[in-house]
């Protein structure tokens, strides 16, 4: 009979009409996102060792890493993430040895203009603090080294004087 197929289709849709809903009311309701989701990137300044691996792993030159050498130590002075070119492939995260670059579950990344889409993760305060720390550590190290050197020198002079004293006494004794 012509139309049997049509009626069967209608039966399915009517059954579905009284069934459970498959949709959720975004943005009030949200589905849970899996842990591996690649959303907005997040950067941990203190974990980064400025190794440049993420920059080299990226296919699209998204990441610009700025570094400065303070007291022979590399300090991160900039980490610019140009989100508009990111493929969200995760190759940077995979390359990072310290998990300094990570992706969060935030997927609402639209902005009103191009200038605000890139993220500069590193704040001036962080750099200043880090440089201060490095300098302080270097100074402490230098001081410790100086102290150690001074002690060593003092010990040496002491032993020298002792020897000289000894020599003198022997001389005196010899002279007597």
């Amino acid at each position: 009979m012509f139309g049997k197929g049509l009626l069967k289709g209608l039966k399915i849709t009517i059954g579905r009409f009284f069934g459970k809903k498959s949709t959720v009311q975004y943005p009030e309701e949200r589905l849970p996102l899996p842990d591996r989701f690649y959303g907005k990137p997040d950067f941990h300044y203190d974990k980064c060792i400025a190794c440049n691996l993420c920059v080299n792993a990226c296919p699209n030159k998204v990441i610009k890493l700025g570094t400065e050498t303070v007291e022979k130590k590399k300090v991160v002075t900039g980490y610019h993430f140009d989100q508009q070119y990111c493929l969200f492939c995760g190759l940077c995260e995979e390359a990072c040895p310290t998990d300094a670059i990570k992706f969060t579950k935030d997927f609402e990344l639209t902005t009103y203009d191009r200038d605000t889409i890139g993220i500069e993760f590193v704040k001036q305060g962080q750099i200043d603090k880090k440089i201060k720390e490095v300098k302080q550590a270097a100074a402490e190290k230098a001081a410790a080294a100086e102290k150690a050197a001074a002690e060593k020198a003092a010990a040496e002079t002491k032993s020298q004087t002792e020897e000289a004293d000894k020599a003198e006494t022997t001389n005196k004794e010899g002279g007597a």
Partner: protein
Amino acid sequence: MKTQEMLINVGPQHPSTHGVFRVVLTLDGETVVKANSVPGYLHRGIEKILESRTYPQVLPYTDRLDYLAGLLMNWGYVNAMEELMDTEVPERAEHIRVIMGELQRIASHLVATAAYSGDVGGLTGFIYCFRDREDIMDMIEMVSGARLTPSYMRIGGVAADLPDGFLEKCQKFIDYLPTAIEEYNGLITGNEIFQHRTKKVAPITAERAINMSLSGPILRASGVNYDLRKARPYSIYDRFEFDVPLGSNGDCFDRFYLRVLEMTESARIIRQALDKLPDGPINAKVPKIIKPAVGEAYAEIESSKGIMGVYVVSDGSTKPYRIHFRRPSFINLGHFDELIQGWKIADVIAILGSFDIVLGEVDC
């Protein structure tokens, strides 16, 4: 009475072209006399871009070929690279690849089924297929972190192991799929209007299909038994039991229905792979910096649209000298102009839909 031929543009901004594809039709009344396809609106020069990327960096770009079957595109590339570098992929990785690849195939066929239903006027079928595709998208997101652009495979293995809860979810979906397919058949396949629009429309003979080097469901709908997974098994496909569904008329209806049948077969493969899934490493030992010896490799896989071939030429540096993709949609589309001649303009959309093209892949 003198009639005049009319020139009409279908696309590039037409939803039923599944992207940005343009066909210039010469019409005599409603009948197509001549057709001229104009692809290229989505051309991004991926093959050229890849010449300035390192081997691992190529991977995310392959997702953007056939974005409805990103994992299969990944697979095509890593397959060619493994051949070039003579890498042995661990067992577990192969099984994961099969599971994910077949899930992706089902997802791709679901889109094809859905879009076809929409193309010929039944938007209800569209929504039903997309509801179930969402489950697969969730699984792919769970494993790889992205829905359409997973970049999940790696040269020599996969990016990460299957997460907790995946196996149960996958099993549940496979068990549910037959019910869903029954629904599609009730809604779309069995619908008389749908059948009238598609049966006996634009048949392709087996001989013509072979001569035009068609591949995938379009070729098999014409009755040619050629599925790379059976004909020349790659990966571990020789260990699974499955059938290759074949059509008999090669018309639009066969091309559509073949995909529905293939979903069941894919589910069968996944079930076996889940049962056999071994433990072990998921990555072969590949050097950190990939520098293949001078040489070239060509490898093919059966993607959801047909034979996906990747040709890699290495000059011994860290970047490929040349990568070429044999994209199935592009080659299948070569037969389109000839096929639609003599059919009515309303059929043009039905015929194009039955080809299941993805413009990211056609234009590359």
